[in-house]
């Protein structure tokens, strides 16, 4: 068993105390927003009305096509502007969350469209026979059933978003990678040896410990539910 060097403990504590909560916060915001927007857009995409479908399709293809990093940088560097009385100026944290949400909601919308369309026609007819309108049918009957099929890809999305929060590093958000890199630079300046192998290895390990159980859960749900 190799001994843990003295310098490592404060570095690791700093990363877990300062960096990890930021990573999880951005991920939580992005996943929640992606799910809500994606479910709505994906359900609307099943309506047979070409202009609406094309607009949502464009949204999905644009945000899936542009690398998330480019979206996040774009939002971050956008000059401040006014919409009516509202002054819009994004800070780093919001830029990362919005960029991830644009990408994530596009992913959810595409998955939702497939899941909603896979619900048999009889379910629509039965719900309509109960006197429910389009909104009621989808809110109470169709989408809840589609959610079951959506669960595994949603857990997969969560894993993806957690990993992609590292993109916020580029615009200076103090998430896990940024705090690790900061410690690496400090150690390099102070001692001449930044221990990049150990520090970035530690970042990899933390992400793995968070992601791997979720990946296993997604696989388990896939087998159970689909």
């Amino acid at each position, binding site marked *: 068993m190799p001994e843990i060097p003295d310098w490592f403990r404060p570095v690791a504590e700093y990363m877990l105390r300062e960096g990890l909560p930021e990573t999880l916060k951005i991920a939580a915001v992005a996943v929640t927003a992606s799910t809500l927007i994606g479910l709505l857009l994906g359900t609307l995409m099943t309506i047979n009305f070409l202009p609406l479908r094309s607009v949502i399709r464009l949204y999905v*293809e*644009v945000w899936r*096509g*542009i*690398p998330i*990093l*480019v*979206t996040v*940088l*774009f939002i971050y*560097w*956008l*000059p*401040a*502007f*006014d*919409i009516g009385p509202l002054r819009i100026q994004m800070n780093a944290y919001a830029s990362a969350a919005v960029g991830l949400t644009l990408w994530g909601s596009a992913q959810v919308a595409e998955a939702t469209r497939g899941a909603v369309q896979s619900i048999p026609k009889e379910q629509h007819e039965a719900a309509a026979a109960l006197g429910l309108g389009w909104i009621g049918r989808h809110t109470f009957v169709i989408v809840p059933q589609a959610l079951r099929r959506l669960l595994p890809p949603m857990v997969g999305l969560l*894993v993806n978003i957690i*990993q*992609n*929060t*590292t*993109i916020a*590093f*580029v615009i200076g958000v103090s998430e896990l*990678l940024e705090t690790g*890199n900061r410690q*690496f630079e400090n150690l390099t300046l102070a001692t001449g*040896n*930044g*221990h*990049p*192998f150990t520090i*970035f*290895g530690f*970042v*990899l390990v933390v*992400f*793995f410990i968070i*992601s*791997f159980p979720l*990946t296993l859960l997604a696989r388990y749900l896939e087998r159970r539910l689909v």
Partner: protein
Amino acid sequence: MFHSPVEILAAFDTGFIWDYRHELWEGFKNTMKVAAIGVALAFVIGLLMGAARAHRIPVISQIGRAYVEVIRNTPILVQMFFLYYGLAQLGYRVEAFTVAWLSIAIWGGAFNTENFRAGFEAVPARFREAGYALGFSPLQTFLNVTLPIGGRIALPSSINTYISVLKNTSLLLVISYPELTSVAYNIQANTFKTIEMFTVLALAYLAIVWTLSALIRLLEARLALPERA
């Protein structure tokens, strides 16, 4: 100072982009170069590791599983840092270009291993048994039966991996490899032509990704298994 989105759009300077066309073209070429190497290696790694995984070849299969889980459950950005600075600490002098194609290929290879494994495992066992009944060796059975069928089952998902590989080259900005995103980002930092630069960048990626997707769907239609069409 700008006050409304309309003013921002009105100030859009198209001539500026033309002035920087050479730099951007160089960046585009670097992006395509790294992506091409990454995709080619991801294909080879995926094919070999996927075959080993699907046929449960001892040792290689377990190593393949660990490789896939580690790469898929950690951020590619951290993998790039780990390779770039970690290899240097271990005494290997590495250039940004080396880390660029290597990190992209390792990532794509892991995802492709899963794609090919799933494809090969989807080939019904009776097809392989038919191969053995014809006197094929295991390798011949793989090359003549499992690969042509399983490879085509794996095609759509592996294509999505290649497109992700291409988009991931944008992350090479963090190790200062001069691909399209980092070139555009540097121009933006020097000139503050934010809207112009990022619009071009976003449109460039959309053009590449959408063209590739369209071409690939054509290829897919041609290669699709007849019975699934």
